[in-house]
Every structure is written in C-alpha cells, then in structure tokens.
C-alpha cells in the first residue's frame, strides 16, 4: 500500500508519452483522415441538452441549428465516441497507477473553494475560446500542427503566449 502511495505521482517520461501521442496522431490521421479532439464532444452535449430543454430555441438559434437540423443526432458523432474512449482510457491508466479517488487538487496556499471557482471560470473561458478558434489544444493546436495547418500554429502560439502573459496574475493559485 505504501508503495502505491509513493507511486502516485510517478508518471511516464514526458518524451515517451509525447512519442506515443505522436504515433497515435499518425494512426488517427492514417485511419480517419483527421486529428484528435475533445471540446467537440462537449459542444455536442450542450447542443443536445439545449435541444432537449427547448427544441424551438435550438431550431431558431443560428448556432445550434447547424447541429440539430433534420434527423441528425448531435451525439452520434465521431468525436463523442472518441471522448467516451478518453474517459475509459484515463480510468484504466488511473486505476493501474492507483490514482483514482474523489479529490480536489489545489495548492496548499489556497482554499478548496477558491480552486473550484477558478476551475469553473477557467472552464468558461476555455469553452468560449475553443468555440471562437474552432478547436481546443488537442483539436486545433496539436492536430493542426501535425498537418502544418496555419490556424493550428496560430492557435498554439496564442494559447501559450497568452498563458505566459497572464501567468503572473494567477501565480498565487499555483505556486
């Protein structure tokens, strides 16, 4: 048991993880012709929820109507299945390394509540940004870079650039 406790934070060598991730991207492009993604599934969920709550509203909205027209089910989507796989895969990996458990990870200097509030607001910003840029770090930046997409490179530079710019203001949350 103690051994497991110690091993909790032993992760793969980042280069090894990156190498495997690169192979996976090649494989994904080879099979499906497109890259990985994650935020698309959340968009599908939002569309489905809105559509369930008020179908009329979804029909009228200029943005939702792109995804709900006709008999197309927004949840029957490549990216949604991929996301289900992400959940399964992460659960397997976490289970093997003994990292599963309900907890809130935060710096000892801040309270749990503060961490949750910041996690939530960060999520809102990320969701907004991912829609404006048509993709998140995995969909736009990583998969875009693999095919030398200009948009992918710009998105990647913008994410890391503004991350470093604003890191100073949020330093208390992390260090």
């Amino acid at each position, binding site marked *: 048991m103690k051994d497991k406790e110690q091993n909790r934070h032993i992760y793969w060598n980042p*280069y090894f993880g990156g190498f495997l991730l690169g192979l996976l991207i090649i494989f994904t492009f080879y099979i*499906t*012709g*497109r*890259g*990985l*993604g*994650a*935020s*698309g599934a959340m*968009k599908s969920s939002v569309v489905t929820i809105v559509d369930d709550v008020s179908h009329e509203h979804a029909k009228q909205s200029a943005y939702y109507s792109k995804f709900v027209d006709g008999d197309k089910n927004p949840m029957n989507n*490549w*990216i949604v299945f991929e996301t289900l796989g992400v959940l399964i895969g992460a659960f397997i990996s976490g289970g093997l390394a003994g990292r599963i458990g309900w907890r809130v990870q935060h710096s000892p200097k801040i309270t749990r509540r503060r961490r949750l509030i910041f996690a939530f607001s960060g999520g809102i910003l990320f969701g907004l940004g*991912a829609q404006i840029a*048509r*993709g*998140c770090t*995995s*969909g*736009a930046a990583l*998969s875009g870079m693999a095919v030398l997409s200009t948009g992918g490179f710009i998105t990647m530079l913008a994410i890391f650039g503004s991350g470093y710019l604003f890191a100073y203001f949020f330093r208390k949350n992390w260090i």
Partner: protein
Amino acid sequence: MVNRKLVKFLSLRYKILAAVLIVLAGGLVLLPKYEKHEGISPEELLSKTISPERYISTDDIAHKIINQDPSFILIDVRDENSFKEYTLPNAINIPLKKILDNDATMYINQNQFDVVFFSNDNFYSDQAWILCNRLGYKNLHVLKGGINKWFNTIINPQKPTEDMPKDALDLYSTRKASSMYFGVVYPEQVEIKTPEPVKKAVPKKIITVKKKKKAPEGGC
C-alpha cells in the same frame, strides 16, 4: 555492480534521442524530390487501353438506342457547330477543350452510366478517353469509328451483293431497320404514301449523382 557501460549510455540517452530526431528530420530535407503523379498507374492504363471493352461498335449503340437502354450516356466531343449540325440522339455535347471543366466532370465522373465518347472518327474521342482514364474515371468507352462509321453502317448501310454470305444480308437488314428508326426513308417505302412517323425518342433525362467525396470533417 550494475553495468557501468549501460549507466554511462543511459546518461546520454536524451542526447541520443535528440540526435535521432534531428537525423530523421534532416532526412526529410535530404530526401530526393519526386513528383507524385495523379491518377492511375501506367500499367493500369495500358491494360485498359488494350482491353476490347474500350470500343463499342456502331451496331451495339444503335441497338441500345432503339431499345432505349438507360444505362449509358453519349458524349459528343466535337465542337458546338458540328454538334448542332448533326449528332446522335440524346448525345451531350462536351467539346474536347472543355472536358476537364467542372460541368463536364458531373457527367463523366460518375458510377451510374457507361460513358460513350464519340467524334467524327476515333481520334478526338480516344483523346478524351485517355484524359478521363488518367483521372481515374470509370466506365469509359469509345464509339468505334465515330460518326463517319455511324453514317456508313447505320444510316447508309451498304447493300450486300448476292454472292455475300447470309450473315452480311442479316446484318444489312438489321442495319436497315435501325436506319429506318433513325428516320432514313428508303425508295421501296416511298410507295406507301404515309411516311413513317419518325419516332422521336423521348430525350433521356440524365440525372447524374455527383460522386460524394468523403472528406474528413473537423475535430473539435
């Protein structure tokens, strides 16, 4: 003790990996450049060229037109003036110069119909055939002999002499029958005062389904 050489080697592992990456990336730069060719391979083109299916005889086409066979499209690759002057029934005019245009691809690049090219003889239609085959289109044929042969065999068939075999006579009578279908009036018919009402074949409606290119869609 642990193998010292191994330890020493492992301490260098990141440098080695970095070197491997640089060599691999440098390899890309140094690779000899070559042009990828589009379309089908030369071997495939050759086998299609020598295949007997490439040509369709005028008799076959006449037979198909009379039976209103819906499975083919006739494509006239001559220029517009010749097309207006005379053409085969239901033919579509796509001059050879425009054969790579978008409107033309709609007719040629599909899986529904057999495509039959024709011109005055084989010459331009063969060119069209080669061009479209190089693009990888399917079901392409050429009308053997083109319109000239069409005239000589179907519209104005040669009357066989008595000493010819029976096959030739049969062929003549079929051709004569088909030429009557296409509106040729023969002297022996003239006595019957009512001219055969020229059967106008209902123009075939060609609705080609544009080939769906299954392009991959975006991720996020």
